[in-house]
C-alpha cells in the first residue's frame, strides 16, 4: 500500500466506511503523517454537520438530484416576482439614507455590489425610470425620480429639511458638462417640497442632479451612474 493510497483513506475513514483492518492501517499512517492528521482535524466536525440531515432526506437527495438533472433539460418558468414586494421596495427606498459626503462613493459601491447580484438581468432592457436618494447629516433628504420622456426627462423631487429661505433650484448636468435648470421654487418654511421639473436632457445623458440655494451654492448632488 503506497502513501498516496493511504492519504486517500482519509475520506472513507472520516465517514466510517473502512473495514477494521484498513482503519487500523490508516491510524498507523496517521501516527507518522502530520499532513493527514491536520486534514482530519480540520474535517472533524463534518460528520456532525452531516447529521443535521436525516438519513431518509439525504438518501432522497441523491434521487432528487437525479430527477432535477432530468428536469433541467426543460427549465421551469421562474416564479413571477410578487408586485407586493416591489411596492414595499418603493416605500423603503424613500427611507434609505446615505451619508451626504459619501453619497457618490456609496452609490458606486452599491452599484458594484448590486451588479454582481443582479446577474443575468443586466442584459434585460433597463426600465424607463430611475430613482435616487441622498441624505445629509444636517437631516436634508432628497429623492429624485427620473422619468424618461420622448422630449427629455421629467424629475420628480421629494425633499425635506431643505434650506427654509430664498429660492432653490434643481440643475441637471449632462455627460458633456452642459448644465440645464430643471426647475426653481421658493423655499418653504417647513423645509419640505414636492415639485416636478423637466429637462430636454435624455435620461441616459444625465450625469448628475444638483440642488442649489439662493447664492447658487450646491446643497445636494446626486451622481447618476452611467447606465
Amino acid at each position, binding site marked *: 500500500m503506497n502513501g498516496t493510497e493511504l492519504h486517500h483513506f482519509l475520506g472513507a475513514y472520516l*465517514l466510517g466506511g473502512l473495514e477494521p483492518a484498513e482503519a487500523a492501517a490508516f491510524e498507523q499512517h496517521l501516527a507518522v503523517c502530520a499532513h493527514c492528521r491536520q486534514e482530519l482535524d480540520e474535517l472533524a466536525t*463534518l460528520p456532525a454537520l452531516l447529521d443535521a440531515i436525516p438519513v431518509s432526506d439525504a438518501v432522497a437527495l441523491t434521487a432528487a438530484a*437525479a430527477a432535477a438533472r432530468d428536469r433541467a433539460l426543460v427549465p421551469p418558468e421562474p416564479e413571477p416576482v410578487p408586485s407586493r*414586494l*416591489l411596492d414595499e*421596495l418603493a416605500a423603503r427606498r424613500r427611507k434609505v439614507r446615505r451619508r451626504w459626503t459619501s453619497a457618490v462613493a456609496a452609490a458606486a459601491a452599491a452599484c458594484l455590489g*448590486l451588479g454582481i447580484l443582479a446577474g*443575468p438581468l443586466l442584459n434585460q432592457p433597463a426600465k424607463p425610470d*430611475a430613482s435616487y436618494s441622498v441624505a445629509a447629516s444636517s437631516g436634508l433628504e432628497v429623492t429624485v425620480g427620473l422619468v424618461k420622456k420622448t422630449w427629455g426627462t421629467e424629475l420628480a423631487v421629494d425633499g425635506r429639511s431643505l434650506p427654509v429661505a430664498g429660492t432653490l433650484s434643481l440643475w441637471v448636468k449632462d455627460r458633456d458638462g452642459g448644465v440645464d435648470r430643471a426647475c426653481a421654487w421658493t423655499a418653504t418654511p417647513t423645509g419640505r417640497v414636492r415639485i416636478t421639473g423637466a429637462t430636454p436632457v435624455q435620461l441616459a445623458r444625465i450625469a448628475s442632479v444638483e440642488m442649489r440655494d439662493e447664492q447658487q451654492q450646491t446643497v445636494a448632488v446626486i451622481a447618476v451612474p452611467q447606465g
Partner: protein
Amino acid sequence: MPLDEDVVAAIYRDHGTALKRFVLSVSRDPQLADDVVQETVLRVWQQAPQITGSLRSYLFRTARNIMIDNYRKAQRRPQEAGDRDVQALPEGGVGAGRIDELLNKVLMEEALLRLSAEHREVLVALHYRRYTVQEASAQLKIPSGTVKSRAFYAVRALRTILDEMGVQQ
C-alpha cells in the same frame, strides 16, 4: 446601474423558491412564509453592498433571524389569539432552537446539492447508509479504490463548499 427593482427581482427569482421552502419547513402558514421571504429579500437588498461570501446562505440566515424575531414577539404577547406569529411555529412550539436545526439542515442540503453527483452518491452511501467501502462498491458498481478516492475528494469539496457558504465548522 441596475435598478433596485431589478436587483430585488433577481434575488427573488434566484433564491425565492429555496427561501420559501426553508421558511415553510418552520411555518406551515403560506401567507406568513411569503411575508418572511419578502422581508428577507428586502433586508438583504438594503445590505447588499456589505455582503461577502454566499448570498444564498446570507439569505437563509436573515430569514432565520426574522423567524426568531417573530417567535420572540409572539412569546412576549401570548394572549393575542389568532396572531399569525404564533402559527409561525411548528406544532409543539419548539421555538428558536428548532429553527437553527432546520437552518443547519437546509444549509447542509444546499451544500450536498453542490457536490458532483458522484461525490454525493459515495458520501450518502458511506455516511448515511452506513455502508462499508466494499458494500458501497457493490451497490454503486464502482471499484472500491474509486469509492475511497471519491470519499476523499468529496469531503474536501464539501469543506470548500461550506467555507464558501460561510457555514461555521
